Every structure is written in structure tokens, then in C-alpha cells.
């Protein structure tokens, strides 16, 4: 779950990390009120779940409340980087002397959190890594030992903080690490952490939560559950409601597989033969007939899908259950689309018999089946 900037900032505030004064709104009139309350130059920031907002015009400055209203009016309802803007964050404009970066990310290689800091804040950390990798200070944290105060002090010292700022900076970094651990973050960043006349302030915030850990962050879901869906297309949202593991792609061949790896390999193989997959849909392990029916019906209802390829390798998934699901979907929706089924493994004979009776031919090899489905569409 990727939190929006304002949501991440609320968490930051809960944890005592200083953030600019401001509020979220979906109404340009209210944007004017917020700017009036702030009483000076403000920044109006589109709240969208994609990076590179600033360059795309999603972050605008306004000298007066009237200007804030105008800017909010253009942003709200418009699009930034192809994403519709529903809300903006109106914040005081900070007098930034220096821009720093602090982050905590999961490093898959070392199987631990890595804490990152650089004096080159304000641009994407990947860009800093490409341009001036020597300016990134990193520390791999032993998950058992944790991250200590002296580690944080050492790190912020390396990026040039001294005196009171060193103490404040290390305090912020420790709090950021605590957020990572306690909120199950996959990534959390302050970029930039601005050095201002009022001290260090988190001007932008990122916080991505591990989806597998959401069961222990119910309040987070209640507070910010909606924005999680902003990342998804309409079809993906529907699929999510049905509990299907589905990713929309831009082709015309609907794909269903069991197991993530096999389903990905199915997409790749279809593409190799010149076809274009319309989606990724993984049934997971041991899908019963009604789940298969739901998945097939979902693709039958998608007007972009001109043919369906179902690829099943039965282990804990039973081929007879899959066959029943396919047949039920065709009968209940009444939609006919060319279908290619490759199915081997548990209860294969029974599954094939059921499908043959329903006039659906079953293939043994996924390559052969991929070739067949592509040729059905005349490519």
C-alpha cells in the first residue's frame, strides 16, 4: 500500500517528525481558506500516487490566497502524469537553505533494512545513485540488533549536519526508522528534508507499507484505505473486490494460470508467438470450480478480450474443478469466446472428459496452446 504524501505526513506527525503547516482539500475555495490561515506564500501539491510530480506541473507555488485558489482550481480535476487529481495539499512555502535526503528501504540482498542519507536532497535517490554514488551514506541494519542513536548521529554527520542540527537530524532519522519498523514499511523517505530558519522540516514524505502486514494495521486501512485503490485501473479494482489476483495489460488475449511463475511464463510465451496478453490472472493453488468460474466470467465480460488461454498445471489444483468452472462460466454468462485450455496433472482425465463433452479441446503443451491461441486471432 502506497500512501499519498499527505497521508505519509500524518504518520510522520504522529511520530513527531516536523512537517510544514497545511491541509488537504478537494475544493479550490477551501484551498483559498487554508492559504489565508497560513497567511503567506503557499505551495499547492497534487496528491497522486506517482513520482515526478514536480516536473509534470503537479507542484505549484502561490504568493496569495487568491492565487492559491486559481492554482488549486486548475489542478483539481485535471491530470498530472496521466493520473486524475482529486485532492491537493496546501502548505506553507518553506524558506529552504539546504535540501537533504533520509530514507529507510528494504534491501532484498542483505535481507535487512538499509538506512540511506545524502546531502543531495530534492532529486530522486536513484538519480543521486547514478550521478554521485559516493554522496550516498548507507548503513545495513541487523534486524536483530536494530538501529542505534550513535548510528543515526554518524550518518547525519556524514551529510554535513553539525551542532543542534546534528542532534535534530539524528532524532528525525531514528523516528523514521521507528516508522519503518512499526508500520511495516517497504520504503519510507523524507525527500527533501529541508534545512530552514525554523530548523529541519520534512517537506515531502513517502511511505509504502508491506501489503502482507496490513492485517496488523487496521486503523491505517480505515484512515487511508481509499488511496490504496488509486494505483489500480478500474478493472483491477473490480478484480480486487472479487479477490482475484489480476493485473491489466493492453492486449487482447485473456490469460488465466495457476501460480504466479507459471502465469508469468504463460504471458511471456504468448508474446513470444506474437500474441498480446490482455491481463495476468493467477488462480493460486487449489482453486475450486466457483473460483475458476468467477475468473473466466471476469475475462468473458471484458470487451477487450477476444480469446482466452487457460493454462493449468494441476498439483493441489484439480483439473476436474477447473473444467467445471470453465463450463459453468460459459453457460451462465452466455458469452462465447474462443478458448484454448492446456491442462495437465491432478484429475486430468476427468477434467478433459468434461471439457471435450462441452466441445472444448484440451492441449498438453503450453507452447502448443500459446501458438494455437495466437493463430485463432489470425496473427
Amino acid at each position, binding site marked *: 500500500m502506497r500512501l499519498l504524501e499527505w497521508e505519509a505526513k500524518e504518520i510522520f506527525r504522529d511520530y513527531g517528525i516536523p512537517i510544514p503547516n497545511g491541509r488537504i482539500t478537494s475544493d479550490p475555495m477551501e484551498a483559498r481558506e487554508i492559504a489565508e490561515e497560513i497567511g503567506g506564500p503557499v505551495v499547492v501539491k497534487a496528491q497522486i500516487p506517482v513520482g515526478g510530480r514536480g516536473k509534470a506541473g503537479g507542484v505549484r507555488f502561490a504568493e496569495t490566497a487568491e492565487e492559491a485558489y486559481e492554482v488549486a482550481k486548475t489542478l483539481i480535476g485535471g491530470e498530472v502524469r496521466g493520473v486524475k487529481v482529486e485532492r491537493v495539499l496546501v502548505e506553507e512555502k518553506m524558506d529552504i537553505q539546504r535540501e537533504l535526503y533520509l530514507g529507510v528501504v*528494504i534491501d*532484498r*540482498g542483505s*535481507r*535487512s*533494512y538499509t538506512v540511506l542519507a545524502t546531502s543531495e536532497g530534492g532529486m530522486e535517490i*536513484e538519480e543521486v545513485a547514478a550521478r554521485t554514488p559516493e554522496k550516498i551514506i548507507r548503513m545495513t541494519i*541487523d*534486524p*536483530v540488533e536494530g538501529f542505534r542513536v550513535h548510528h543515526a548521529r554518524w550518518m547525519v554527520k556524514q551529510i554535513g549536519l553539525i551542532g543542534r542540527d546534528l542532534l535534530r537530524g539524528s532524532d528525525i532519522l531514528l523516528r523514521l526508522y521507528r516508522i519503518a*519498523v512499526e508500520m*511495516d514499511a*517497504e520504503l519510507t523517505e523524507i525527500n527533501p528534508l529541508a534545512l530552514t530558519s525554523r530548523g529541519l522540516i520534512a517537506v515531502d514524505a513517502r511511505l509504502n507499507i*508491506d*501489503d*502482507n*502486514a496490513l*492485517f*496488523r494495521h487496521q486503523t491505517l486501512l480505515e484512515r487511508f484505505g481509499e488511496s490504496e485503490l488509486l494505483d489500480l485501473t478500474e478493472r483491477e479494482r473490480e478484480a480486487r473486490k472479487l479477490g482475484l*489476483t489480476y*493485473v491489466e*495489460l493492453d492486449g487482447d488475449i485473456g490469460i488465466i*494460470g*495457476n*501460480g*504466479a*511463475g*507459471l*502465469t*508469468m*511464463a504463460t*504471458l*511471456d*510465451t504468448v*508474446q*513470444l508467438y506474437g500474441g498480446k*496478453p490482455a491481463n*495476468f490472472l*493467477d488462480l493460486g*493453488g487449489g482453486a475450486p470450480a466457483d473460483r475458476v468460474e468467477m475468473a473466466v466470467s471476469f475475462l468473458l465480460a471484458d470487451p477487450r478480450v477476444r480469446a482466452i488461454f487457460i493454462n493449468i*498445471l*494441476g*498439483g*493441489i489444483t484439480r483439473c476436474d474443478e477447473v473444467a467445471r468452472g470453465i463450463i459453468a462460466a460459459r453457460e451462465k454468462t452466455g458469452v462465447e469466446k474462443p478458448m484454448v485450455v492446456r491442462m*495437465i*496433472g*491432478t484429475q486430468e482425465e476427468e477434467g478433459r472428459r468434461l471439457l471435450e463433452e462441452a466441445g472444448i479441446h484440451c492441449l498438453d*503443451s*503450453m*507452447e502448443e496452446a500459446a501458438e494455437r491461441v495466437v493463430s485463432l486471432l489470425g496473427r
Partner: protein
Amino acid sequence: MVRFVDAETRVVVQGITGKQGRFHTKLMLEYGTKIVAGVTPGKGGDSVEGVPVYDTVAEALDRHRIDASIIFVPAPYAPDAVYEALDAGLDPIVVITEGIPIRDTMEFVARARKSDITIIGPNTPGVIKVGECKLGIMPARVFTRGKVGIISRSGTLTYEIADHISRIGLGESTCVGLGGDPITGLDFIDALRWFEEDPQTDAVVLIGEIGGDAEERAAEFIAEGGFTKPAVAYIAGRTAIPGKRMGHAGAIIQGERGTARSKIEALESAEVPVAEKPSDVARILKGLLS
């Protein structure tokens, strides 16, 4: 040191009374796996498929000699089951459970590595020594005894490729699923080290997918001479789009990193042939081994 399984491995099933635990205990016993005990807190005294059930791993250990554990406990409770197995010194510990938070995995994997205990998974089909011991949920029928080792991040794709390797007459020695999560107990390099020393393995198949850089690091390890037997790879997710999770929690391209292209290029530059289609793996292997 990485430890897998063989005919002598004696096993406890944690979470044996659940639907999955029960079902797979039966299949593992049919395969010949020596399951000597099961654990489900609150169900001590029951039995599943003739296997006695205990409330705790410690009690099971009082009554039986046990080497390894396989865990079917639901995600919120699985980490504690792992610690229970770690405290009992069981090795390896196979974590079948899908959906464990990354932070929990990070912590128990760090603990295990400090104690030199092998964790396979989470979110893995498990490990099989063909013809001797199946500690996992893989369908037995796709495997035949032979000389090819398999290391994989994906379940069904492993079965697909193993099926071809069996049909072409090569067969498999040991097959291990690393797991589909972003962080797992083992990576390709750990497993490659084991297969390098395994006298029953003549060649290895690496089945990777998008996300992370485990395949790239494995390629580097092979290029530096860490693994000297023939190897063939398959990478799933050539058509995946960045930023979208493709089923597995770990299968996601973040920024420029973790693409199939980068993995394929790394492996090819380490002179590991990368198959275009799953069925090509067996054909390439046959060529390399003849």
C-alpha cells in the same frame, strides 16, 4: 551451511491439523517422508494420518528424534512457529505459509542465519530429494530420479520444467523452492554452493522471475567460478510492467531494477544459457550433458 533432506530426515509438521497440513501430511507420507510428529497448540493428543499430535515442538522432541520441520501455520502466527522450531534446533525449517510480513521474515531469517539453520521459504513449495524425501507441497508425479538439481522462485513453473526434464529422460536429484517473497531464507547463491558439493547433481536449473537482484548476484557468483557444473536458466516476467506485482509479493519491477532483461543479460554474460520457453530448458540441458 545449507542443509536439505534425504531418506533419513525425520520431520515434524507444524500446523498439522489444518486443511493444508492434513492434506499434505498424507501426500508426504505416501511419498515416503518420515513424518514422526505433528504440532498444533490445543490439539495435543490427537492424531493425523497415524501421526501423533502435540501442543508444542518441545513435547514432540521429548518423545521423538526429529531433524526438520515443515510449517503450514497461517501468516499471523507463522513467525512464532518458526521461532519454536529455531529454539528446538530443527534444521532445515520449511515455511510453506504465504503472506508473512516482510519484517517478520527479516527477523527470523536473521536469527536462523546466526544459528546456522537453513530456512526454506517462506511462500515456497518446499524441497524434495527425488525418491527419498518430499518436504513440501509439490506434486510427486512430475519428478523422476536423475542428476539435475532445480533452484526456483516459483512453484508451478518448477513443476512445468521438472515435468519436461523427467520426460526427456534426465530426471532430478534435489529440487528446492526458494519462495516467492521479497525476502527468503535462501537465495540462489546459497543453493548453488550446496549443489556444487552434491555428488548426485551433475547440472542445475535456475528458475527466476522479475523482482530483486538475486539472479544477477547468482550470475556474478557463477562467473567468478563459485559454481562450476553446467547450469541453465529460465526467467519469468519478460512481459511484466514496472510497478505492478505479478502474483508473488516479490515479483515486482521497482524503477529500473529487477527486470527480466537485466537478469537474462547477467546470466548470459556468465555463460549460463537462458531458455526462451519453459520446454526449452530440458532440451538445452540434454545438449549440455551429452
